[in-house]
């Protein structure tokens, strides 16, 4: 057997899971899809003393849409969200990114909240949460709070969650009218980690100028990277080719990728600039035609 021994508890309710986490703290890990945690355990990089299995909690398996805002529970698997018509309709950026996350076999098991709790900056999903200005709903045995995505990802594999907290739900706010979004990445094969990926969101006001923008990149540093200065350059502009190119160049300068065996940091920065321009161009075109994606 590959993983080190651990004690196992099948959660009987959210309250039961939270009570166990309050008791065992960092010794215990929540087990959702396990598609990142179990490989780490097979390598014995992770050796939790206890796993609290959330898979029995059917009440955490949901996709709710209310006035265009989307809530997704902690046990909701990628494949369900990937194929949900309401996600494609109301949150096209999320629908567009999902086929890029790992392989179908992984998406049949893995969960969005598990991915976000794992906080791998190379994963696409945290960047999409930043670009979407999503909120994270954390619960513990003694309370609950909402954490903005911008304050959730603290460092490599490190989130704002406390040892007794569970990410029970995420919320993506409704897109305003005349909003366009786009996700683009470059990976060596479908399902591989992206060498660089960009999530873009732009909204237009009545005169056709940019009223809101979000731009975030994955595999671009120790956390998912929000290109805040680049997004700020777009506000009030006409999203013409010139300003998009300038914002993309700014995004390229904002990232700090580490490089890996497949790509140097310089190449990743180059990709960041190229992909930011393409993603913003596509998002702007979608906003103008009224088709978000």
């Amino acid at each position, binding site marked *: *057997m*590959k*993983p*080190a*021994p*651990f*004690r*196992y*508890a*099948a959660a*009987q309710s959210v309250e*039961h899971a939270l009570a*166990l986490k309050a008791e065992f703290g960092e010794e215990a890990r929540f*087990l959702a899809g*396990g*598609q990142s945690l*179990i*490989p780490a*355990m*097979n*390598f014995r990089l992770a050796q939790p003393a*206890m*796993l609290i*299995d959330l*898979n029995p909690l059917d009440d955490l398996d949901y996709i709710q849409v209310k006035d265009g805002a989307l809530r997704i529970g902690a046990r909701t698997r990628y*494949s369900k969200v990937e194929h949900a018509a309401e996600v494609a309709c109301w949150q096209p950026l999320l629908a567009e990114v999902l086929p890029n996350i*790992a*392989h*179908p*076999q*992984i998406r*049949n*098991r893995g969960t969005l909240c598990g991915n976000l709790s794992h906080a791998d900056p190379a994963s696409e999903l945290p960047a999409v949460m930043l670009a979407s200005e999503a909120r994270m709903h954390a619960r513990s045995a003694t309370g609950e709070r909402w954490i903005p995505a911008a304050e959730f990802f603290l460092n490599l594999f490190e989130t704002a969650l406390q040892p007794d907290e569970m990410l029970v739900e995420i919320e993506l706010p409704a897109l305003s009218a005349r909003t366009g979004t786009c996700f683009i990445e470059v990976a060596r*094969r*479908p*399902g591989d980690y992206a060498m660089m990926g960009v999530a873009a969101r732009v909204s237009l006001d009545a005169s056709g100028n940019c009223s809101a923008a979000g731009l975030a990149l994955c595999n671009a540093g120790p956390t998912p990277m929000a290109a805040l200065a680049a997004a700020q350059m777009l506000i009030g502009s006409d999203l013409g080719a010139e300003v998009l190119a300038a914002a993309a160049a700014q995004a390229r300068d904002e990232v700090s990728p580490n490089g890996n065996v497949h790509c140097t940091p310089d190449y990743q920065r180059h990709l960041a600039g190229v992909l930011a321009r393409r993603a913003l161009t596509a998002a702007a075109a979608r906003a103008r035609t009224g088709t978000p994606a």
Partner: protein
Amino acid sequence: MSSTGFADEVKVSLTVNGRRYTRTVEPRMLLADFLRHELGLTGTHVGCEHGVCGACTVQFDGQPVRSCLTFAVQAQGHEISTVEGLGEGPAKLSVLQEAFRECHGLQCGYCTPGILMTMQAFLAQHPDPSEAQVREALSGNLCRCTGYQHIVDAVLLAAKNLRAGGQA
């Protein structure tokens, strides 16, 4: 199981290829190892053991998953399908298996069970796939012998034969 709700060994009851099994195992036992060592179903192969190669792919309630990234205890009450459940035996392969033989879709065969369990579910949802769709669906399964071309040929042939009325 103790009153606090956790245990050192756990009883697992599950269905594999329509047959009910019950075993008592450590929670850390992976589903892949459970199938092979506890049930003797060695058709499920173990490759990388960290979710990259796809050799251990089985169907969990009808959906392909990595059995090296699932604990056996998590299959409690669920239905697992493995390559042993595909055809009726060497004398009567499934349409998909037959297409792999016809197209020379395997060489050493190590990756084949995982590819069959992936593609059987894929074809059920995509009865008339393009070559590009087949290649994308295959992206989670590594084969180091074939270069994939004959696997793609086999899946496309199986799709054609299934449309003509066979059973996957």
